[in-house]
């Protein structure tokens, strides 16, 4: 039988990062604090620290990605690790090689960490359950299940602007049903103890039993973001129109697209977030995306520090060395 939560070792330390679910509040705070110490690295003349020198990290992306892949790669390089990118779309699994055989081959090359993105929920758990004991797995997004580093960088961004989580009202707007980002954000925000967490979308984009995750469900945008401190918008995939979930992008934007007008319902100092890539004029208007309340580009920058923190913690090195 597979152990229930394999991402922690026997001493409760992070061995893999597969999901936010089950992480203790203090561990999330530790990761955010470690990330804070890495934010200065990007501004140095030599943008590197030697924490992971000699370690080999493989980016194993079974789905296309630009931002996540690039920031993972930058993060690993800034930690002085050797980084290998395997574009699986054009690689061996297309030639009939099984996922497991591919992992065995990479293990044989003495890698230390796999950063995995895969279209199926549970893929990162599966890979973590199969790899040799010296290898760690970071989930860079599996199906609709989890995208823990994205949620952590979002928490990092929120904390930088709002300091404390306890008083906050957070609204997540958009395709909750298919979003691994939303699931990880929900676990992170409930663990960090925000005052109120809402999800806002038509019923077709909200999974049944969503309220069991500890969120309040809204179907009206203005009501859903009223007096919110943080408004997170999610990407809407084009294929949702083909599976009878939505009639059109046009109507979605009319009802759920975030415009300066609608944003007035939120608190005046509310921040607007988006995990990218943005569909301008679908989830959010350009005025909002590029406006003063938007922290969308900051999220991308913060992604590097947060991923450095996670990689260095998982590979077992104390992050305090980074500041020196």
């Amino acid at each position: 039988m597979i152990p229930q939560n394999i991402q922690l070792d026997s001493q409760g330390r992070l061995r893999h990062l597969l999901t936010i679910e089950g992480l203790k509040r203090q561990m999330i705070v530790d990761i955010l604090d470690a990330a804070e110490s890495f934010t200065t690295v990007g501004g140095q003349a030599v943008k590197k620290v030697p924490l992971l020198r000699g370690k080999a990290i493989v980016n194993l992306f079974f789905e296309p990605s630009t931002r996540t892949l690039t920031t993972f790669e930058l993060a690993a390089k800034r930690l002085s690790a050797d980084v290998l990118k395997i574009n699986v779309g054009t690689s061996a699994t297309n030639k009939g090689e099984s996922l497991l055989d591919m992992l065995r081959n990479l293990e044989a090359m003495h890698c230390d960490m796999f950063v995995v993105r895969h279209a199926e929920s549970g893929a990162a758990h599966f890979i973590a359950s199969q790899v040799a004991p010296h290898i760690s797995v970071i989930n860079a997004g599996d199906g609709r299940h989890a995208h823990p580093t994205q949620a952590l960088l979002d928490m990092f961004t929120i904390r930088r602007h709002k300091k404390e989580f306890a008083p906050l009202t957070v609204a997540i707007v958009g395709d909750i049903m298919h979003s691994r980002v939303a699931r990880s954000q929900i676990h992170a925000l409930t663990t960090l103890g925000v005052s109120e967490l809402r999800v806002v979308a038509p019923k077709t984009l909200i999974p049944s039993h969503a309220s069991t995750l500890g969120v309040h469900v809204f179907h009206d945008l203005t009501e859903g973001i009223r007096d919110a401190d943080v408004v997170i918008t999610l990407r809407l995939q084009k294929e949702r129109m083909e599976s009878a979930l939505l009639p059109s992008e046009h109507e979605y934007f009319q009802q759920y697209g975030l415009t300066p007008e609608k944003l007035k319902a939120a608190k005046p100092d509310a921040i607007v977030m988006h995990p990218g890539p943005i569909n301008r004029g679908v989830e959010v208007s350009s005025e909002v995306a590029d406006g003063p309340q938007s922290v969308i580009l900051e999220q991308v920058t913060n992604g590097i520090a947060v991923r450095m923190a996670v990689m260095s913690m998982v590979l077992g090195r104390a992050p305090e060395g980074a500041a020196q």
Partner: protein
Amino acid sequence: MGLQIKNGRVIDPANNIDTVQDVFIEQGRIAALGKAPAGFTAQTQIDASGQIVCPGFVDLCVRLREPGFEHKGNIATESRAAAKSGVTTVCCPPDTNPVIDTPGTIEHILERAEEVGLTKVVVLGALTQGLAGKQLSEMYGLKKAGCVGVSNAYHGVNPQVMRRAMEYAASAGLTVFINAEDASLRAGGCMHEGQVSVRLGLPGIPECAETIAVARELQLIELAGVRAHFCHLSTARAAQLVADARRDGLPVTADVSISHLFLTEMDIGFFDSNCRVKPPLRTQRDREALRAALTQRSISAICSDHQPHDVDAKLAPFPSSEPGISAIETLLPLTLRLVEAGSLSLPDAIACITAQPAAILGLDAGRLSVGSAADVCIFDPERQWNFNRAQMVSYGKNSPFLGWEFTGCVTYTLLDGKLVYQLGE
């Protein structure tokens, strides 16, 4: 050539027997219970003191994986697993490769099973050719070749074809076996749609995928006037629909898989692919309702829904792992747990895996009547054992029950009076 089973507690629900007595077997048949028939001499004696002697079990759904999926198991390996589990009759659904839609395939399976000789095999024929849901199969021919019913397994059939197939099956005197699931509502789902699927981000199969299919088929059954059986119900509501229909006099029966009486969506934990099964594991409320339906006899049979798999079938991310549990070896021990839990008396529990499934298949099996075939299971109800991979006999080791402690273990299995399994041999 007589065989005498001595001092066992004989439980034969079909004949309302529950008493300590001897069983006498001659020429492969039950010769007498209690007192030896005139002129009986026992060549062999089995001491069944402290043990239960009951009809060999009749399992409504066992995938033997032959023909077509021999990398997952075959008639020999799975017959051996059946014998070890006290199962003397297994019913094989038609979704083999080739599909069981010709007399030739039926003959092949039955011949192989007879050669192996460890359990009796009966088959369901395909309701439509190739299970494609378009053209009716030659049901009269299939019946003549030995099929005991027809089914389209999990392959969808539109209502019009289903109606006609039911009418034709009724004409041929065949029971229609139904795996009730609306394919469009299942869509890409791989587990129950509920509080676990929302957490794991796995596409869910809603309850209504089953209930809508059951409601639809019930109306078609009434219209066609066919005798029908629902395979492995998974939801409380579907069980209720069938109970209501039975009360209204419709000729329908239903079974439940043994695994669904113990596991729920929660057991999937963090993506345990051994808990991926069709229909999906539902909620605790559903599990309790299925147990209650057995108690109230609206569901009259428990089957294993045995689906052995090769190792690779489960070694994949949850959505691309294959559904099914290698379950025949846990049929008796888990059924005994239902007795322990108070859901069923021991005779009623045995009836659910002997006489009642035999009646659904229309077989003269699952009973110890004088003159009937001596298919007998003897088990020690007190014996404790640990269910582990090493002693699994089925080729498929895909069971979420590995590591469980069980009380109650098959000691002997007789097929036509011949010993086909003995514990420790």
